[in-house]
């Protein structure tokens, strides 16, 4: 199945800063975050000529393609509900710390947790100390407010500057039990955000990813990563980071003023083989 995902940054009427910014009056720059995989391997060395993009059905001219050079603004949104008590919460803490240690100096990270309550433990920072310290002190208690958490977390920009790529990794082992908002609201917030969303699920060996996780990841341009046991989390978090490093940022300029509302975007490969994962579109406020 072909999946699309995309991280889009839009700025209308003012200078737009992106990976390789080009600003012209009356032009809106759109930046797309896409992963190209051939099986389990990332496809490398693609150029602007390898991508074909349509925005609301109109073919766009790809102006720049960059890979692995833009710093990440990472939001770790972690489930700390009581079902994670014992080994899973310890494994989650280790996996998240390992991921943070794998970030580059110019990357930033923030940490939020959710059970009944959603809390911002560490605001976006390059300093790893407070993040590692917070991750060492996770406690599993309470129900699961994942819908509310996703909406609230997506309203926190994890980036420190507009050049950064906003990314959110959501970790959960369960289903929502205590949110006010429903799953549709979480997906709607994902569609209206420019943050790339990966979902890491801790599932039993026989359980597959939930529809909720799949729809959320699809709306956020990322993937669902399923762990059969807590012991797999560290490996999985490393794979997520590797995937983030191998994604392409594709920029194109939208001629004229961007119409408000939903923009349906399709990304295709030309002269290369691979499966593209990108956001299905982006939303412009009316």
């Amino acid at each position, binding site marked *: 199945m072909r999946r699309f995902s995309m991280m889009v940054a839009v700025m209308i009427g003012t200078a737009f800063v992106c990976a390789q910014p080009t600003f012209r009056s009356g032009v809106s720059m759109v930046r797309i975050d896409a992963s190209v995989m051939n099986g389990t391997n990332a496809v490398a060395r693609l150029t602007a000529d390898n991508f074909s993009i349509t925005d609301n059905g109109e073919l766009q001219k790809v102006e720049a393609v960059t890979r692995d050079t833009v710093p990440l603004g990472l939001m770790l949104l972690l489930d700390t509900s*009581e079902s994670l*008590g014992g080994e899973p919460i310890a494994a989650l803490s280790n996996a998240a710390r390992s991921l943070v240690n794998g970030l580059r100096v110019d990357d930033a990270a923030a940490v*939020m947790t959710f059970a*009944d*309550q*959603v*809390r*911002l433990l560490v*605001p976006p920072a390059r300093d790893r100390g407070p993040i590692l310290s917070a991750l060492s002190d996770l406690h599993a*208690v*309470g*129900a699961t*407010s994942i*819908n*509310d958490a996703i*909406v*609230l977390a997506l*309203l*926190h*920009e994890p980036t420190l500057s507009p050049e950064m790529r906003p990314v959110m990794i959501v970790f959960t082992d369960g*289903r*929502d*039990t*205590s*949110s*006010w*908002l*429903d*799953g*549709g*609201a979480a997906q*709607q*917030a994902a569609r*209206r955000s420019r943050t790339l969303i990966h979902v890491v699920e801790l599932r039993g060996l026989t*359980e*597959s*990813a*939930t*529809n*909720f996780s799949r*729809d959320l990841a699809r709306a956020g341009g990322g993937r669902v990563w399923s762990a059969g046991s807590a012991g797999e989390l560290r490996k999985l978090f490393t794979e997520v980071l590797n995937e983030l490093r191998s994604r392409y940022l594709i920029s194109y300029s939208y001629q004229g003023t961007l119409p408000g509302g939903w923009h349906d975007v399709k990304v295709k490969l030309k002269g290369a083989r691979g499966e593209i994962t990108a956001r299905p579109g982006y939303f412009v*406020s*009316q």
Partner: protein
Amino acid sequence: MRLLRSTLGRTTASIAALLCIAATRIEPDLDVYRRALADYAAGQGAVSAVKTLAGWTTDRVEFCVQAVILRADARELETAAVMHLEIGTAISGSVVDSGAAYFDFASRLAAATLPAPAIVGGLSAERIDRVNAFNAMVNSVIASAYLAVHNVKLARVAIRQAQHYRPKSAAVTTLAGITDEVEALGFDADMWERVSQRTAALRQRSKLLVLAEREFEAALEQDPAYVLARLRLGRAQSLQNNLTAARATLFQGRDAAREPRHRFLAAMFLGSLLVQERNVEAAQLEYERARTIMPQSQDAVAASAYAELLSGNRALAQQTARQYTSAALDDAWWIYKTGLFDSELMEQLRRRVRQ
């Protein structure tokens, strides 16, 4: 034989010694406990009682509770029941089931206010009614505290207790309906993969919402002026997409609501209905109203931020979300998150033991 006698002698001596130690340790415990009761009756809050009994093992508290039950002083029993209710509520969301032991003490102390069957006949109907009402109230507050931390199972146990004392109370019937509604929301079809699982989730959700609606209607038959039942009925109708009926019921409920928690719930439920009707701007106003009443409610913050986002005001939505998630919370969130905790009933109990 000599060995056996010697062993028995040593054992008896040990037990005697232990009893002496227990007596010297427990006696001050009872004094401390009674002082805590007196302080609570004099108006000290739950924090003071929590501090006094902090670090006590369940056995130590159990001893004091037993002593109060044996003394059978109705006033002391009621005060102790409400104090334990306060402590259980104060800690119920901090650790899993942390309030359970205190709620159990509260329920047992309240039950001990009932005279022995032999002398019940000699009591006035008014006195028996008062005792039954007290027991129903205590167990209703316990149920609402469990619901506030999403513990449906223990909430149902407490509701059964409350129903035992007040089978035809609108408040208790409403609580039973709320429990069905809370449980129904746990069955979200989108969370399931297989069609069979999704169908089962939808069926269960629908069944529980119908049950909840019936309970709210029954509560309104028992007491047409019971505002909470009307508000919850409107919510149950809205959750079943019966929007026309929900709108009428919720507006009636809102107009009759006087208590802050009822006004909060009216605003939340109307906000949700307006989102369903795609009137996001009006929903935003309702959610702001809810936040004004309970600023610490996560439900109100999430609903408000989402409505702001939908109406295109992303900057305001960000501000709402950031202020809440970054704030240091020094209070019991479970009292405010959902509006499920019955703060009015708790207040009535406080006033009763502090008269």
